[in-house]
């Protein structure tokens, strides 16, 4: 009887909340083709939906994927944490958080989550491929850390930085490659600096093929190894 008395109010609240959830979804849909300047609005809309509603797991996971796609890894990690409170046993949530951790180079956390996702769903190919690729990346990452250690003791850092740039290219850290090559370009002659600056401006004009451009630059500096 008591429930019946409050039923109209509950119905109004239910419809109001349904409508708010739909509005939130519509806002996200309208931002699907947003440009780079609107990335914060996209990120915020995804976080708003997940923090306020997030009952539709499949839809929420597409939003986490969107956050990862636009590079908001910290937000993706927190969004997954919120979703895990409601769906603690969902394997894909661990996979997504592992992917976000991996993108932040937090490999301990990444491997823990990726392993857990695979443990929950051993036959999932995406999870096993993701885990394998993260493990391979970790090998390169550890090599980079060893190079970092030699960098502090090495008298000529050209060779170390060059090797590090190659390894960053292998794990698709293009900005890091550019930074190291920039440092290398100042170590020998002015011509190297000029070459580097020219190539960087070309790279910013043609952002479609960063790997080819960076490989070309690495090839140039490989030729300078051993010269002083």
């Amino acid at each position: 009887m008591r429930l019946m008395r409050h039923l109209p109010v509950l119905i109004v609240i239910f419809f109001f909340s349904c409508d708010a959830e739909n509005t939130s979804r519509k806002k996200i849909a309208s931002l699907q083709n947003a440009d780079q300047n609107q990335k914060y609005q996209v990120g915020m809309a995804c976080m708003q939906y997940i923090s306020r509603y997030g009952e539709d797991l499949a839809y929420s996971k597409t939003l986490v994927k969107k956050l990862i796609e636009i590079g908001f890894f910290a937000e993706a990690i927190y969004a997954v944490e919120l979703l895990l409170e409601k769906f603690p046993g969902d394997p894909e949530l661990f996979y997504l958080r592992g992917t976000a951790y991996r993108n932040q180079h937090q490999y301990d956390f990444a491997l823990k989550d990726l392993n857990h996702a695979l443990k929950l769903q051993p036959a999932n190919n995406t999870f096993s491929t993701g885990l394998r690729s993260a493990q391979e990346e970790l090998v390169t990452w550890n090599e980079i850390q060893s190079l970092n250690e030699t960098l502090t003791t090495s008298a000529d850092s050209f060779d170390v930085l060059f090797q590090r740039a190659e390894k960053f290219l292998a794990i698709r850290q293009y900005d890091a490659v550019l930074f190291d090559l920039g440092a290398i370009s100042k170590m020998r002659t002015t011509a190297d600096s000029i070459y580097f600056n020219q190539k960087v401006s070309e790279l910013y004009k043609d952002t479609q093929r960063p790997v080819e451009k960076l490989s070309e630059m690495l090839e140039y500096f490989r030729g300078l190894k051993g010269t002083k």
Partner: protein
Amino acid sequence: MVKKSQPANIESTQKKGSFWSQLLISLLIVVALDIIAGFIIIPQSYTSFRTPHYFYHHGLQSDQDTWAAWGSSLYPVKTNSLGMVDSAVYEVDLVTKNPRLLILGDSHSEGVGVPYEKTFSGLLSKSMKGDMDVLNASCISYSPKIEYLKAQFLFEKGLQVDHIFLLIDISDMQNELVYENFQPQNRSWANEAWYSTKFFLKNHSSVFYLVNSIIDKRETRKFLEKAKFFNEEGVVGTPANSLGLYASFFRGFDDNVLLSNPQFHGVGEWYYNERFKKLADRGIELGQEYILKLKAMCEEKKVGLTISVHPWHYQILNGNAHDYYVEKWESFANKNNIDFVNLFPLFIDSQNPVITTKMFFIKDDNHWNEFGHAKVANRLERYFQQQKNSAIK
């Protein structure tokens, strides 16, 4: 005559009485409608817990449990009875048996974009539980002047602490210039009540909210016009919600020449630029004046004081862990016998700087992410452990 006039008097008194009661009822109805309308039209605000303050310029409202936004991140915020970010809404005992640490700083120390439990103060509070209680009175856009006023306010309120750890931020150079003319108003019951009422009305009254948002929008537009550097959405790569907050801290700062100079808004690069180095020095000097005032107050109260500095992206990319800025603060601290912690080496080492910013900072932002906070917490924990060990020796 007297007898005759009595009923007329009663009638007029009754009329007067009914007029006032009707007015009161009408007012109550208007207020009720205003608040109901407020419930419908006031949207969820991610800055509702922030409030101006008559004594320390601005701060956080006490006893809040809400969500905040930073960039594209949404994160939970809770404040204690003293209006400090904390793990829960609770009444802070002004006096405790445990030693107590008070953290002061700006947005870095407030922990924008990161849930409290993952900020360095949250982590420190957890790891030092039992040894030391941690309170964090930091807030966005604080600088030594406001931090000094905040500490003074808390001390006068009766709060007892054993040590203050103040994190000096690079933006303090700019904030000190902006707050140079700020005069705290007297601490009074009236001021306290007026600011609390304003806070309530802003979040509940539809009329007050509408008027306030019109004023806010106008002020932000004025700021954007002056600072030609910005477009309506903010600088490319700057979220609009941070820009609104940024704009609000420049109210009362009327140097339009500086405001319209894009370099003025790039405070992280001031001391690398010959033209802006003088301004940087002025900002540092103003900050140091207030650190000395804070030190004197701490000495009087027998409270320890430590200051620290930490780098922004620009400093990390420059790769000098002991640069001009660090040197300025370190020599000041040494000269005045203040403990100093340089946090630059935490983020400037042999690692590629681009990777460091990616690992420890919020994307395209000078603030730490949860891993950056963990790094700082770790360093501070070691610092306090060393302090404890040397005190035992």
